[in-house]
């Protein structure tokens, strides 16, 4: 009886993992096939030495440019989020001052605001600031949306750090800035990693804000560039699957290497 139930559970889990992984495996295999092979036998193993499609994506399309843009936008956003988030969290967690609770509440309120729906005022604002069709438009938006969770995570973490080191350094006459930089921040690194991962995935994958704010092909990020690219190579499925594979692979590899951190980071808001 018990064995039968566990057997059923195994069947469900194995079936589900096949459903989850098969589309990704077919995608990767199709990247090495010709149109005819994809249409006739989508499930057969390809000749993995035939990298013609991948080379074409690399050389004949703007794929590298899109990839670089995504790196620049995501990298700068994460760096700014961590710098600004750590500044606010450090002040809120280590100093007592009037208005501290109000400021924390201000950041927490940002957790629930759906910025997508404010895209019309954002558009006008970016136009007035001369930021339409620049990377700054995206970076500033991502920083604003990423700050609330980051401040939330880091404040909790920095509060839990012990006082002794800080007090000792203060007795020795170290400046506040030096205490923060040399003594406290090295201890905050683990929480920064969680905050970074939590922000990387939605920023790297975002499609909505580039769609609104970026027009030049030179500035398009990867998800946005992919839609352009699908239009251009609409009939060459081998190239299409190669493009999708190359875009998905960096995230998939990172996820497999750091799956625990990914899961913790991405469900952090939902699990109390």
């Amino acid at each position, binding site marked *: 009886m018990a064995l039968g139930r*566990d057997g059923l*559970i*195994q069947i469900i*889990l194995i079936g*589900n*993992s096949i459903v*989850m*992984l098969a*589309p*990704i495996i*077919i995608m990767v295999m199709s990247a090495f096939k010709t149109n005819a092979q*994809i*249409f006739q036998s989508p499930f057969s193993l390809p000749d993995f030495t035939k990298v013609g499609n991948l080379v074409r994506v690399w050389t004949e399309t703007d794929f590298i440019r899109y990839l670089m843009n995504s790196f620049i936008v995501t990298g700068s956003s994460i760096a700014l989020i961590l710098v*600004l988030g750590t*500044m*606010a969290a*450090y*002040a809120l967690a280590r100093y007592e*001052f009037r208005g501290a609770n109000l400021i924390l509440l*201000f*950041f927490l309120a*940002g957790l629930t*605001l*759906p910025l*997508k729906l*404010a*895209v*019309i*005022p*954002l558009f*006008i*604002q970016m*136009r007035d600031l001369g930021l339409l069709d620049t990377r700054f438009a995206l970076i*500033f938006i991502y*920083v*604003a949306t990423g*700050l*609330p969770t980051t401040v939330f995570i880091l404040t909790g973490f920095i509060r839990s750090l012990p006082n002794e080191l800080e007090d000792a350094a203060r007795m020795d006459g170290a400046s*506040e800035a030096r205490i923060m930089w040399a003594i406290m921040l090295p201890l905050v690194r683990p929480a920064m990693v969680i905050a970074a991962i939590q922000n990387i*995935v939605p920023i790297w*994958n975002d*499609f*909505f804000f580039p769609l*609104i704010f970026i027009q030049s092909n030179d500035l398009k990020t990867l*998800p946005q560039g*992919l*839609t352009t690219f699908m239009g251009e190579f609409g009939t060459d499925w081998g190239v*299409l*699957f190669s493009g*999708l594979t190359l875009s*998905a692979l960096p*995230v*998939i590899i990172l*996820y497999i290497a750091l*799956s625990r951190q990914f*899961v913790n980071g*991405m*469900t952090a808001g*939902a*699990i109390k």
Partner: protein
Amino acid sequence: MLSSKLTGRNLWIAALVVPPIAFMSLFLVYPILSAFAYAFYEWRGLVRGDFIWFDNFYRVLFEFPFSERTINAFSHNIFVFFALMVLQNGVGFLLAYCLWRELWGARFHRVAVFLPVVLSTVIVGLLWKLFLHPLFGAVNVSLRAMGLGFLAQPWLGQDSTALMAIIVANAWHMVGFPTLVFLAGMQRIPSEILDAVRMETESEWVKMSKIVWPLVAPSATVVFTLLFVGAFNWFELPYVMGGIDGSPHGATDVLGLYFYRTAFGSMSASAENFGPGSALAVLIFLIIAIVSSVITIRLRKREIQL
């Protein structure tokens, strides 16, 4: 001496908190507050005109052709929410329960179920669009290979199946999220409680319905609320798979697409229309805010404090 030290300290604190607050105010809080104001003005292109009270709201809710499209899109959002409730949250709960038993290989299955979640919606949409291609897509090719060719359909090309096809793609993409949130909820149930139940009853159903389900209520509250927010913000997947007009014939149109089309124009209507667009944004925001607070409050009531 003391006072100068104090002001120095205050300056230091200000230097730390002012830049982040400025960023949040300028690019998050201020645009959202403006969004409410904008909906009450007339707009000519990108230029703000007169204050016109509720005219924009009246237009999108009651004036042809806006009203018809609003209702069509709204009904699709409702359908998406309930369909995903079953396909995403329901299946997620079942999978969480299976993973919770920690049978051999559970770790692998846990990594597998969350893998699509980390992919970009654009990749997922484009991938499934290729799979669902009527002639060459892997779905119809395999149906024909299995001798089920009569089931092969133009999934995204006909009104009756297009929305459902996109919903299934969404469920494939996101099912790992409720699964792992529910799993975390189950893992927090103290083992003493489970041991006590095991002494009382053999029935798995009683254990599920009377113990596990009530005790994972906090996870359910979060997952249901997030699904509702997601269903009414639904934009990227229908945009990629069904196109900006919600083709075919508006069968995949949802409020997010309709809002985008109204505000920023589309192939068929190229001009920006910020007035009705802002009104739609405010309406979507109100629906999300009101319903998700009702869901949260009602579900909180059945949560049990351990």
